[in-house]
């Protein structure tokens, strides 16, 4: 009898109840909050639901040494986490993004491409602020990339520059991407006049298939020669787009933009979520990263809108500044925000296709910015 009691006592030591700390419970609640936001509010459910559930997985209190935790070498979660840690998943996601993105809007209106560059100011604004707050340059660079509004890029760069901060950076980037409509709208309204919001833009011209095939090749050669350190992201992005546009690799494009990106998104979401173990996540640094991430989004949005207003000083064909926010690379969410806010001012004004140009330029811009930071700080 006493033996049974002893073994039950021993079993109790292995349970989550015996090893639970209040920090674990806080993280589990955050995970449930993410899942709720994803399901109820439908804010980036494809990301928030896996991340939220990953948070719960990663914060189940357990007896150390069972070789099941994400930070324990050789455990299943640890093996899956290598895709994040070594930076395998982000280029695969970029392959899928390339295969599902239509760059026609950008090809037909190249003058809008620079908005995608202006919005990258968020990255460097956050970098400067992070340095002021005492972060090391590599950490500051990894935090700054949150302003690119690009989860895979943020994971890719932070895995190379500041692996210890990756969990906080990734969760911050994906959270703010989900909150793009909430963050961007007030800034857009604050920085534009009613008259500016009414500006109508011509429909983009139709782009031939030949142009769409040439785009990924020329785009890749140009950007990769300037920033070779961005090769994994830029290469996969443009390669995916070539698969889509070539017209002869439909099966590959369908796989890249369908099953492959779904699998990788699931794995990246769950493992990033699981990496936010309470002892590593609930720190003062994480709070600062969340603050800086928010600021970087604000700076990025404001820079894009103000840059359009600046361009309008010199051009005859005015651009609606409401598409400036789309310079961040949250595709297509930020372009959708431009459309919604534009239609609030003028219900017949459809800005979506125009906003897609800076939006996809933002994807290229953030990958280029990540390459530069990696080159300098890696």
């Amino acid at each position, binding site marked *: 009898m006493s033996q049974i009691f002893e073994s039950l006592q021993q079993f109790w030591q292995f349970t989550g109840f015996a090893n639970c700390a209040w920090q674990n419970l806080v993280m589990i609640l955050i995970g449930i909050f993410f899942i709720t936001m994803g399901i109820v509010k439908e804010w980036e459910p494809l990301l928030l639901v896996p991340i939220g559930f990953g948070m719960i997985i990663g914060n189940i209190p357990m007896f150390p040494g069972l070789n099941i935790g994400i930070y324990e070498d050789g455990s299943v979660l640890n093996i899956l986490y290598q895709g994040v840690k070594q930076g395998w998943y982000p280029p695969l996601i970029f392959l899928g993004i390339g295969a599902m993105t239509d760059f026609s809007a*950008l*090809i*037909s209106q*190249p*003058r809008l*491409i*620079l908005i*995608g*560059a202006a919005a*990258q*100011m968020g*990255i*460097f604004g956050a*970098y*400067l602020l992070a*340095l002021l707050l005492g972060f*090391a*340059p*590599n950490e*500051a*660079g990894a935090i700054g990339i949150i302003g690119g509004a690009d989860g895979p890029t943020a994971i890719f760069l932070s895995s190379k*520059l500041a692996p210890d901060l990756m969990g906080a950076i990734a969760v911050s980037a994906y959270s703010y991407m989900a909150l793009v409509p909430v963050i961007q709208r007030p800034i857009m309204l604050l920085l534009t006049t009613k008259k500016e919001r009414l500006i109508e833009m011509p429909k983009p*011209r139709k*782009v*031939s298939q*030949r*142009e769409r095939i*040439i*785009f990924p090749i*020329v*785009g890749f050669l*140009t*950007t990769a020669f*300037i*920033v070779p350190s961005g090769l994994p992201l830029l290469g996969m992005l443009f390669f995916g787009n070539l698969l889509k546009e070539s017209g002869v690799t439909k099966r590959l494009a369908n796989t890249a933009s369908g099953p492959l990106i779904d699998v990788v998104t699931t794995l990246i979401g769950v493992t990033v979520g699981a990496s936010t173990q309470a002892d590593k996540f609930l720190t003062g640094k994480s709070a600062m990263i969340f603050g800086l991430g928010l600021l970087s989004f604000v700076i990025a949005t404001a820079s894009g809108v103000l840059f359009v207003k600046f361009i309008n000083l010199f051009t005859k064909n005015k651009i609606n500044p409401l598409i400036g926010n789309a310079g961040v690379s949250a595709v297509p969410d930020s372009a959708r925000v431009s459309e919604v806010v534009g239609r609030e001012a003028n219900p017949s004004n459809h800005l979506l296709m125009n906003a897609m140009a800076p939006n996809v*330029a933002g994807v*290229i*811009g953030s990958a*280029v*910015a990540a390459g*530069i*930071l990696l*080159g*300098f*700080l*890696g």
Partner: protein
Amino acid sequence: MKKRLLTILAIILSGAVSLRAQNLSDLIISEVVVENETGLVDENGEHTPWLELTNTSQGTVNYAGCYLTDNKDVPKKYMIPKGVIANRLGARQVVVIRPGFEIRKGSTIYLISTDGKTIIDSIKIPSDLPADMSVRKIAMDNKKMDFKTMQEPAVPSPGLMNSEGNTESGAEKVARTDPHGGVLTLTSVSVVFAALLILLIIFTIMGNVFSGKYKRKPKKGKSSIDADTAAAIAMALDLECGDDGTAAAIATAIHLYLEDSVHDSESFVITITPRSSSWNNKKDMFRKPVR
């Protein structure tokens, strides 16, 4: 004769390939200590002279069978033993070796290839090298593995890659040179804008070409004929030839020529490309497929 030549060529090629495959030429003598009084001890616990080899390549090199000597005329003075797994030196790794002869100050140590003839590397030992100090080669550029012999004696660093202050990471360098981040920010913003500006220029030009803004100039000869001229020619032909359809055909041909709808390889020859219709299209024919 031909066969013999081919055999010799094959032997030479295989020799060259095997030498290259092993990358023996990527080995250097990177450090030597002559008077070892308080430093590294050997397997017997004694302070003996030592030298260090570095593999500067990205591949593994098997240095077993190579020779060390301090006399070029006696290249096989000491052979590095074969059959030891540790003789395989990984990419950019170093190994400490105790040669089987006395290392003297003022001498030059040579590393000889497995053929016993080819000198792979050498290092000159200063005659005034102090005890417990080394003469060494330092990587001036870690990426290119560019080594230079240092004149000043140095504190020995057995088993470690010799480099001078260039091992700091990019972040450390930025922290030292640009603590506030202004330079990096300005540089990065400029590069992002430059990259996208180049794309803007390329795609503006491409867009103009594809949307027909830059129309090709008509070829010589064509410029002299415009649509009005073509119509005039057609009317004149109509009057001349009556109503047999010849004029209409010629007028159509001239019209198509002016519209660039025909592609002629020879000048003054106009071809009307046959167009497919449901009458001549194979898939629209009402014939059953032949089995």
